[in-house]
């Protein structure tokens, strides 16, 4: 289904089911404000305090987002301020705010898994773990609605239009090869280079 011919039944089925309780139901303008907030937050000389998360919780969520989309030669979720999008949306939008318990219990779940997997470091926070241990912990929770909510928020933020804020100058689009020029002429790709003789120009 393409909102999926919007066929777009595929969009309906997949984006709808995964998000129905959370981000998809959230108030649109509030999400947009939260994305713009994320851009301001990462551009500020000193990053602002969190509004819903505690400093420790916010650091944990930020570390989760950065494990989902880590920096390579292109920016990661931390660089793009994805955690500020999540925090501001939870704090300012009543519908997104219904996910507050999902995030609070999700953070507790993270800590519980850390205690099970690494009993030798009692009380260690997710954000302070070495990267390979963070990956181990996330593998243990990757099938949970909490992880899905963080992953969904991360993709929404990173790949939404640059005007929203968490994809400045379309840098995340550039990373995947999407060029937002919106006016093209054939040939389009590697396999149609010689296929355009006699077509309308």
């Amino acid at each position, binding site marked *: *289904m393409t909102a999926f*011919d919007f066929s777009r039944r595929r969009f309906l089925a997949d984006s709808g089911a995964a998000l129905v309780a959370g981000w998809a139901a959230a108030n649109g303008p509030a999400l947009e404000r939260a994305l713009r907030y994320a851009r301001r937050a990462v551009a500020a000389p000193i990053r602002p305090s969190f509004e819903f998360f505690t400093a420790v919780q916010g650091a944990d969520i930020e570390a989760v987002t950065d494990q989902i989309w880590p920096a390579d030669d292109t920016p990661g979720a931390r660089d793009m301020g994805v955690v500020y999008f999540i925090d501001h949306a939870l704090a300012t939008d009543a519908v997104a705010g219904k996910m507050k318990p999902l995030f609070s219990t999700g953070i507790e779940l993270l800590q519980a898994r850390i205690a099970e997997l690494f009993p030798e470091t009692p009380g260690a926070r997710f954000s302070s773990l070495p990267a390979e241990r963070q990956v181990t912990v996330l593998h243990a929770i990757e099938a949970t609605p909490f992880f899905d909510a963080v992953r969904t928020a991360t993709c929404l933020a990173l790949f939404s239009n640059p005007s929203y804020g968490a994809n400045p100058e379309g840098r995340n689009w550039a990373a995947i090869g999407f060029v937002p020029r919106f006016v093209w002429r054939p040939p389009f790709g590697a396999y149609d280079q010689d296929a355009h003789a006699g077509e309308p120009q």
Partner: protein
Amino acid sequence: MSVPDFVIVGSGAAGGVLAKELAEAGFRVVVLEQGPYLKNSDFEHDELKVMFRYGITNDPQIQPVTYRRTEADQAQVGGTIQYAKLVGGGSVHFTANYWRFHEIDFIERSTLGPIGGASLEDWPFPYAELEPYYTMAEWDLGVSGLAGANPFDPPRSKPYPLPPMPVKSSGVLFEHATRQLGWHPFPAPLAILSKPYMGRNACQHCGFCIAMGCEHNAKSSTLATVIPRAEATGRCEIRPHSTVFRVETKPNGRVSGVLYYDRNGKERRQKARAVIVSCNGAETPRLLLLSESTRFPQGLANSSGLVGRNLMFNGWTLVQGEMPEPLNEFKSVMTTRVIQDFYLSDPQRGFYGGGGLDARFDAYPIFFALNCVPPGMPRWGADYKRWVRSAYTRTIMIEGHSTSLPVESNSISLDPVVKDAWGLPAMRVTNTDHPDDLKMRLFLVDRSLEVMNTMGAVRPLAQPVTIQDGSNHLLGTARMGDDPRKSVVDRFHRAHDVPNLFICDGSSLVTGGRGQPTCTIQALAYRAADHIARFARAGEIPSGS
């Protein structure tokens, strides 16, 4: 204005055509549309808003849809009926695939005989009767394609008005692979302009057809084509933000107009000499059922009990894979090559069904990152990121479009519990796809995988074939027919029960074809307008006002 000749409920693929045809024929028309009246300059390439925020579609938060598999189940909120909610309706946001139905689609019941568990019927007229209107739709709206390229195409009286769109890399790969397999690829017929036409721009290949409006006016929506011409007559008013909730009936059994909520939620009345309902195959039956009265206690035009029944969604399938080199499929129209080698129902397969395949790519970046990760590939982390970065430009998809059998228990009805934002009963979907429809989809998945293998694509991912809880192809819920006990409207779209009520949209279809119903819905609208105008001139539509 004084009481208009017609009020048309809905401005989409059918409503827009009817408005223009009837206004040009000299009648006064008011069109009521739930959604806003946007201009092409309002359309943005905004995936977050359009795909995830119901930017131009029905919003289930104010218009909830419930779903149940069978009539014995309790429906739950969450059915995925989707339609575009703006002037121009679904013709604004559709992918613009513009397949004619074939001759067989009109006579399948008499050709194949009955099929268990289905209420398959012949149409009340053959393909040949609709052919001139297919041609009219293609030339009046603007369709690109290549006549004669598809050996399975039904007869046509004229070629397409515009040459096919430039082939994409997916089309080249698909064409080579399907020829190798002995099949017959042809350029996709699309309601998108490959060249300037009737004062509109040619496509600029922006790549944002699916689910989005076209900022260049190159997609041949009714918003871009016939609606401006309807208004230019001076006899047609398009009234947006008008949510019709009742067709009013007089004691003599005629309809006198409609009640609607305006943009401020205020209840208003629009009288008319005759009413045309063109709200789509889901909202049309809902409106008829909401319009029950002492005269029509089962709902308007529903003496057959078939309003809302025989709901058909069309089948669809999707397989994706990756090629070694970039295709850059984010450019240009969604699809440029199609095969219809499996269109006919073949008894050798052991089940009823038929369909076509197209090569395409229609995942915008957010959707791709969220939902297109193949099995065995991490869904997060450094390897995931590496895959998304490599695969976005190299992914090709093959989509299948197929039959859905009419089944009487598959339906749109009024939910007895859940209400919409106006306090009206919500739309309830009851659907279990006929087993043959699921088998046909699995068959098309297998053919798509064959094409992927022949192309040399790696990491093929097939979307699972499951029972559908909704769609945006909404068909069959007020079917046409000669027998008032077995159909809702007659062969001219007039309600059997009400002499000045006409119903014309996806609900009119007796069978669903093989996907891509918009072309047929619009051909029906041109044909309906011809007959309705003829009846009106002859004084054969008694006035309700």
